[in-house]
């Protein structure tokens, strides 16, 4: 009967065994807010850096940065590009040997911070005003700013300029009715006007454009079932039903960028990561990005996705780690990362310099003042998964926008209950 033990629980068990064998069942290292004491020397130290890489370009850039800092400060950095990042990070923390520096998505901040695993070192690196306020807010919990934003990506509207000209269209759309008319004009010869990822992480942009939101300003209440959100989702559904908007699975694509690159869709709503993908996979496609169009209220909106440099409170070398992050988030290094793999620098000054030198990213940077960050609440991933699983059914009428939002609201509210 040994065979009946399920694979999943063995995976769990594996994580637990790591904890046993390293003998690291120490208590958590909680650090009270505002009082950060750094430990360890600042030179002659060996640090580890774990990150989830988007590809060879990012891995090479991070390794080069680590080597440069190591040489300058007489330290050594062991760079670990993780293949399954969240899982490997969990295992490292559960085993009591977390990496000294790691990538942390804003959605995961609560999970780590609430367990007292995260060192709130950020104010030691630079004043908050040097960074975009939305990004600082994303890494602030109970008025404690935990970690320095690494970089970010915003959604914008990508347009295939060849198809655009062939359809005889003029200026890019700035509002929904123009978007709808343009998508209609572009839908021909088997090409669909607009491809949108079938997830809240893309449709949420339409919520924001219509003045809707995920949560209230204080992040204490969910606001999914607002009339603005409903109107936005109904707009998406009506476009999908007309066949002028498609979701990637309908076009046999893994993501909207693939359908866009292969010429199956004339427009897409993706983030600046699409720049690298277009360059490497579809270099012959001529395209440009414009800011997301505004909703009927005239409000601008988009979504932002960001990572920060996390430092665990259990690290024995926090002094060196903070110095390392100072180097990584410096103006010059942020520009190097941006040029290497297309992320937007989190420092205001660096982002503006980058946009000036690269006009193609201007549309992505433009959204920063009003961009909306993902829901930070612990456990939201499953709730969002439930919503995402129904999005593709909007096209067939198999899913009802009002029901979807009500379910999303009640499932999310259940997370806030103690």
């Amino acid at each position, binding site marked *: 009967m040994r065979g009946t033990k399920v694979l*999943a629980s063995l995976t769990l068990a594996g994580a637990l065994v790591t904890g046993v064998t390293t003998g690291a069942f120490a208590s958590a290292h909680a650090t009270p807010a505002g009082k950060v004491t750094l430990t360890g020397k600042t030179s002659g130290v060996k640090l580890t850096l774990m990150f989830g890489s988007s590809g060879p370009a990012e891995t090479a850039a991070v390794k080069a940065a680590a080597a440069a800092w190591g040489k300058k400060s007489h330290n050594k950095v062991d760079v670990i590009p993780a293949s399954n990042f969240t899982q490997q990070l969990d295992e490292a923390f559960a085993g009591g040997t977390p990496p000294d520096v790691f990538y942390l998505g804003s959605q995961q901040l609560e999970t780590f911070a609430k367990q007292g695993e995260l060192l709130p070192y950020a104010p030691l690196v630079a004043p908050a005003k040097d960074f975009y306020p939305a990004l600082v807010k994303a890494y602030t919990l109970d008025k404690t700013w935990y970690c320095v934003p690494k970089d970010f990506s915003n959604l914008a509207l990508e347009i295939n300029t060849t198809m655009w000209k062939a359809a005889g269209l003029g200026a890019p759309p700035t509002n929904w009715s123009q978007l709808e008319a343009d998508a209609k004009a572009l839908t021909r010869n088997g090409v669909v006007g607009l491809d949108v990822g079938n997830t809240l992480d893309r449709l949420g942009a339409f919520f924001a454009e219509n003045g809707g939101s995920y949560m209230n300003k204080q992040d204490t209440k969910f606001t999914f079932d607002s009339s603005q959100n409903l109107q936005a989702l109904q707009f998406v559904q009506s476009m999908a039903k007309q066949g002028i908007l498609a979701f990637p699975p309908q076009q046999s694509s893994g993501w909207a960028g693939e359908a866009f690159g292969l010429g199956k869709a004339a427009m897409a709503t993706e983030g600046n990561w699409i720049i690298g993908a277009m360059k490497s996979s579809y270099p012959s496609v001529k395209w440009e990005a414009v800011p997301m169009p505004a909703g009927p209220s005239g409000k601008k909106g988009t979504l932002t996705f960001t990572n920060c440099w996390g430092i665990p409170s259990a690290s024995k070398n926090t002094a060196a780690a903070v110095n390392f992050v100072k180097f990584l988030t410096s103006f010059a290094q942020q520009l190097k990362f941006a040029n290497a793999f297309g992320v937007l620098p989190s420092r205001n000054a660096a982002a503006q310099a980058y946009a000036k030198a690269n006009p193609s990213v201007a549309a992505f940077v433009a959204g920063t003042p009003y961009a909306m960050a993902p829901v930070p609440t612990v456990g939201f991933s499953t709730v969002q998964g439930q919503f995402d699983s129904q999005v593709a059914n909007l096209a067939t009428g198999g899913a009802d926008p009002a029901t979807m939002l009500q379910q999303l609201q009640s499932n999310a509210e259940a997370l806030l209950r103690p």
Partner: protein
Amino acid sequence: MAARPMPEPRVVPAPGTTNHGRRLRLRRSRRRGSSTAGQNLHGWLFVTPALAILLLFLVVPIVLALYVSFTNWSGVTSPFAGTVQRVGFSNYAALLTEPGLDQQLFGTSLRDNLYFVLFTVPLQTALALWLAVIVNNRFLKGRGLFRLAFYFPSVTSSIAITTVFIFLFQSSGAVNQILGLVGVKGPNWLYDSRGIFTVILANLGIHTPPAWSNHLFLGISLWQWLAGPSFGMCVLIILLTWTTSGTFMLLFLAALQGISAEVEEASEIDGASPWQRFRRVTLPMLRPALVLVVTLGFIGTWQLFDQVTLVGPYNQSTYTPAYLSYYVSFQDNAFGQGAAIAFLLFTLIVILTVVQRRFVKEDLTR
């Protein structure tokens, strides 16, 4: 099994044993007591490495996982850290008794997996038996080649095969292209979460569920329970039937080759037709192999995981408890909930296996 102490080895001198055997017997009879203890000690010594490995990598993790299922451990600390709270049965209650998303997802995963089991086990058993009978035919030319060909899917990486299937069953993939040639518009296989029974009823003109079927069980309505496997699950049923039948074919083949040719010849002389021979002679003699294949099939199909992982989390029409356990653990850092799902699945498999064994036993004594 390994925990049982070794039985005392019995030394029985075979006829014609020489002095060596007699000497051994004499020595044993002289110092019987201490020798038994010594042998026990040696026995334990030899099984200790295996026991230690089992204990460390099997027993300890299972016990720890059981403990975790009663906590709210998030996976980023040690499970015994001060911030981890013991929450009693609330992880189990959220799955079984409290209405909510957790229960709804668990119910959905059980539904999806149940249909997978109900379709896959009979199909793979029948296909494996059929293939075994074919390649067991003495007059078949190139038997070795066929055996290899039928067994091949079983030894190919499930990840590779699933990836190929994902390409085949894309909305504009090869399968839908072929269906298009005969004028059928194929569904978007992997993303269509409608159950096939629902689709059939809709084609017959029944769109709205009758009132009785709105009753909820484990968070989803009876109408949803009766919806049948989704198109995505049908793809996985085809995939798994194809890949597992090779292994089970080998089991049947071994059993078939254990049936002596005389038995078959005797029935032939008695005037049995080929079908009668198969139904009345071959099949009853294959019974032990059949029981084994069905049991292994039931256990294996309830643990569907890697294929589901590849098909993707977007699609809840191919959820399984094993995948859900992984998903809530590593995506939501709800390891307590994940462990609870794993233990409920474990319980379910044990119960089903016990029921099946009892059923088969009664059948045998009849």
